[in-house]
């Protein structure tokens, strides 16, 4: 047997040029080819259809007898005898450059805005590589989004991965656009960029974001990767990887602070389930493959800050919870990987509260190191904690009131009801164009807290009460 280990680079090139005519089986986005030379796992594949159009793919399983490839542009129109397949002998890479900002690409990084492909500064493997935990810098820089419920209670930190758990028809796009527009770091102007990855969303959603970036004049700082609802569903699997590869280049080779918006992660997960089902893998919950967690982690972990690098990657993935169910595998596994979550509540939206951010299930895990004295304001940690505690009691009181009637509540519980009302209407609720400073946010927080008697405030100090409490 010819020993593959001894094969030289030139031989590899020759083999990579070798073309196989005809495939053995086509099933969904998968193509099976028999009797090949030894093909490497996860090698890049080019599949040429009978019209001469080349589609890219990836080797999912390789053995002496058969090689399984997934074709990113889908297999529709491919025929078994006429398809030609080439194995490239290397993983899928994309050419990246900061010139990609201001441009629109498909999920594989090919321009779809009519312009020429920009000259690449680097060719990078789209799968990235795991970041060494010792190379990471723990994120602690406060990002002011101008949105009270985020800045005050679920603070976004530069380098964080903070998803929006939303539902169909809820204003997650508006919130993401507002964050992208208003986000700033205290005291500094910095090089920033937005990388936008759309997976399986409709044209008007993509248009909404483009217009929103345009109207604020930041479009030249935005790179868009669009794999829309009518594109082959399999392309969605590569789209976030392509986008994150550019984000890494911008952050770690170009010193930029990059905000990555990925929408809709639920569509991504569904494509993954599709492939898994076709391959006959044993599913875990709701038909999703057992490796959904690891697969999502490969994406979400491509964020953060690194020692010795000026740039950063902040991720804002958006996902719609099927049936608004937070325990569905997609939000559940995401929540297990990301550093908190902004959860939307349909009932609040129905009461006309924008942004309809649910007070209790939302969380930012990185806020602890990014708030307080010298970063936001000294009273911030205690105030946030007090607001959470009080609002959680409000929920209990409301439940009680729904059973025994509001009149039967104790005077104290009435005060809590008032506080809850004020909290939602004044603190959480704000305009789509409204950009509140962190001081304003905290002041409103104290203002609504002042509906409660001082004895109820266990989580703030006497000095803080002295300074800020107005009850």
């Amino acid at each position, binding site marked *: 047997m010819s020993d593959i280990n001894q094969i030289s680079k030139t031989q590899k090139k020759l083999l990579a040029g070798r073309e196989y005519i005809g495939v053995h089986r086509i099933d969904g986005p998968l193509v099976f080819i028999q009797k090949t030379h030894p093909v490497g796992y996860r090698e890049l594949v080019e599949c040429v259809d009978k019209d001469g159009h080349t589609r890219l793919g990836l080797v999912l399983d390789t053995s002496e007898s058969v090689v399984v490839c997934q074709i990113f542009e889908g297999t529709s129109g491919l025929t078994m005898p006429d398809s030609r397949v080439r194995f490239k002998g290397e993983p899928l890479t994309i050419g990246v450059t900061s010139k990609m900002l201001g441009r629109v690409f498909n999920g594989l990084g090919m321009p779809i805005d009519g312009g020429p492909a920009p000259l690449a500064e680097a060719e990078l493997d789209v799968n990235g590589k795991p970041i060494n935990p*010792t190379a990471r810098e723990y994120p602690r820089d406060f990002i002011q989004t101008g949105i009270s419920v985020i800045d005050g209670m679920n603070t976004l930190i530069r380098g964080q991965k903070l998803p929006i758990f939303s539902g169909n028809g809820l204003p997650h796009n508006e919130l993401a656009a507002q964050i992208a527009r208003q986000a700033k770091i205290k005291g500094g102007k910095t090089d920033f960029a937005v990388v936008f990855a759309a997976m399986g969303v409709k044209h008007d959603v993509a248009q909404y974001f483009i217009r929103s970036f345009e109207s604020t004049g930041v479009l030249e700082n935005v790179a868009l990767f669009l794999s829309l609802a009518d594109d082959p569903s399999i392309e969605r699997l590569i789209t976030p990887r392509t986008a994150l590869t550019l984000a890494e280049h911008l952050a770690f080779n170009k010193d930029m602070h990059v905000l990555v918006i990925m929408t809709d992660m639920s569509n991504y997960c569904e494509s993954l389930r599709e492939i898994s089902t076709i391959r006959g893998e044993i599913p875990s919950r709701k038909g999703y493959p057992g490796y959904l967690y690891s697969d999502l982690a*490969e994406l979400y972990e491509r964020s953060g800050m690194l020692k010795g690098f000026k740039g950063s990657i902040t991720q804002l993935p958006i996902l719609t919870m099927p049936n608004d169910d937070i325990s569905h595998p997609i939000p559940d596994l995401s929540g297990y990987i990301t550093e908190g979550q902004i959860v939307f509540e349909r009932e609040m939206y129905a009461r006309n509260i924008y942004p309809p951010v649910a007070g209790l299930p939302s969380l930012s895990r990185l806020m602890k190191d990014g708030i307080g004295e010298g970063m936001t304001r000294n009273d911030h940690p205690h105030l946030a904690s007090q607001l959470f505690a009080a609002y959680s009691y409000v929920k209990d009181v409301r439940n009680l009131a729904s059973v025994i009637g509001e009149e039967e*509540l104790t005077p104290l519980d009435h005060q809590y009801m008032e506080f809850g009302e004020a909290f939602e209407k004044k603190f959480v609720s704000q305009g789509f164009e409204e950009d509140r400073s962190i001081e304003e946010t905290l002041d409103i927080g104290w203002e609504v807290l002042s509906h409660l008697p001082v004895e109820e405030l266990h989580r703030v100090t006497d000095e803080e009460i002295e300074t800020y409490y107005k009850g």
Partner: protein
Amino acid sequence: MSERIIGQVKRVNGPVIVAKGVTDAMMMELVRVGEARLVGEVIKLEGENAVIQVYEDTTGIAPGHNIYGSGMPLSVELGPGLIGTIYDGIQRPLEEIYKISNQFIEKGINVPNLSRDKSWEFQPMNLAPGAWLSPGMIIGQVQETERIVHKILVPPTIEGKLKKLAGQGMFKITDPIGSVETEKGEKDLFLFHHWPIRKPRPTAQRLPLNIPLITGQRVIDTLFPIAKGGTVAIPGGFGTGKTMTQHAIAKWCDATIIVYIGCGERGNEMTDVLTEFPHLVDPRTGLTLMQRTVLIANTSNMPVSAREASIYTGVTLAEYFRDQGYHVAVMADSTSRWAEALRELSGRMEEMPAEEGFPAYLPTRIAEFYERAGYMKTLSGEEGSVTLIGAVSPPGGDFSEPVTQHTKRFVRCFWGLDRQLANARHYPAISWLDSYSEYLNDVSGWWEENGGSGWEKNRGEIMELLHKEVRLQQVVKLVGPDALPDSQRFILDVCTIFKNAFLQQNAFDDIDRYSTTKKQIRMLEIILAYYQRGAEAIKRGVTLVKLKRMKVVQDIIKCKFSISNDDIQEFDKLQARLERSLDQMEQLYV
């Protein structure tokens, strides 16, 4: 190490490789795959095929690539240099990898587990040539950190007559420090030895568990204590506080050594430990926490099969320190990710799945892991312990899933995290209704002895109140609190105070983050004093509103923040004020 070709790649499916032409491979043998020499392990032998689990990304591996056998099982290196180091799942030092491949982890990097360049000052025991060396015996020591004296052990697989032992001096770990005449001939002794990760290290005897591991977390130490050498599971949905609880224990518990295994979790959490621990001072020794900690990091984006191994790597290191006579606490965050790695590998091997796709051997593996905990008499006659604290991440936060259920069968302590509590920012969100500790009776003797009598009684009393509260709350939910008499509403009130003042503990507060046993005892006593005297006062006609308005009640709620561990006598003053306030109150009603 001698290398031989044991076969060639036949099929690659993710981290699982089928090899053909295999004749002399060993089960569990450490192998290297392809010219990149990716680390793998033989996990199945079938005719002339072998199944190999590869611990690195297999991109580019193709049929026909050679597989090299090492002739030994997947092992760790045990010796000076472990403390303060961060390793990946198969004990490769991440700091060294960082020096070679910068911010991203490249594959195929081959670095020694323990530094070959560093010299250590060896201090031999007084052993004359001819002395009998038994397995696991201590033959000398190295001051590894300011805090840890690293005992040098005879490898558990070696025994015989000491031929020579070096005197005090500087040695690298590959320099022989002596030799021993064994049945199989003369063997050199080194500062380190190898041990296969899947094989528990031998001990002389299991001892009963009756000393608590003091964690400084009130809800744990006072309500659901864990014994040194015990096992505990912390299940909870995402964001309920598993990691924070484990970090808090790693920081403040009274073990001598901490092994922290980040198994399939976030990179930033490991970075957090790495940046924080070197600056945090252990209140017991005044030295930094990093000086007693070993980290294993196999984050969620690192290869899945190394995640499976990381748990064993961690517990083997822990056993090694136990064998030196130390108390070791192991945090495994999260054992669910390890179980999922098992599932993924099993699926790729096309094994028959049992519940939810997990392999049928899942419960056996979980049991084997937790069996490695214990309070032991070591081979050298010392006492040491390994306490295993495993986080469980149930899908959807539902505790009826297989990993939680099977884990529950094999651990004796259960700290169930409650979503409602976490949402209300009641941290630690350990439910006082679902949690339990089977060590309670075993350790109460220690508490009565070291903390003063009454501990068990007080604990029982507050638990009873908490259970009463549940029943009363059910009434309130139907008819409102006004329907209850003051005496019962007072119970609700005391429970609220207990939750706010005692059970909630803020990990970010400099004073509150850790409570000594003394502070815990005094806090509980004061709250119970308020309950007993308050109940009396109500009987005499004092109204609940008046009681609640006493300024001293606010001070009790905030005493966790205001009274530090070093000012225990402040509690006497607080209690005196409480008594005085109640006296005054009662006087109005005589």
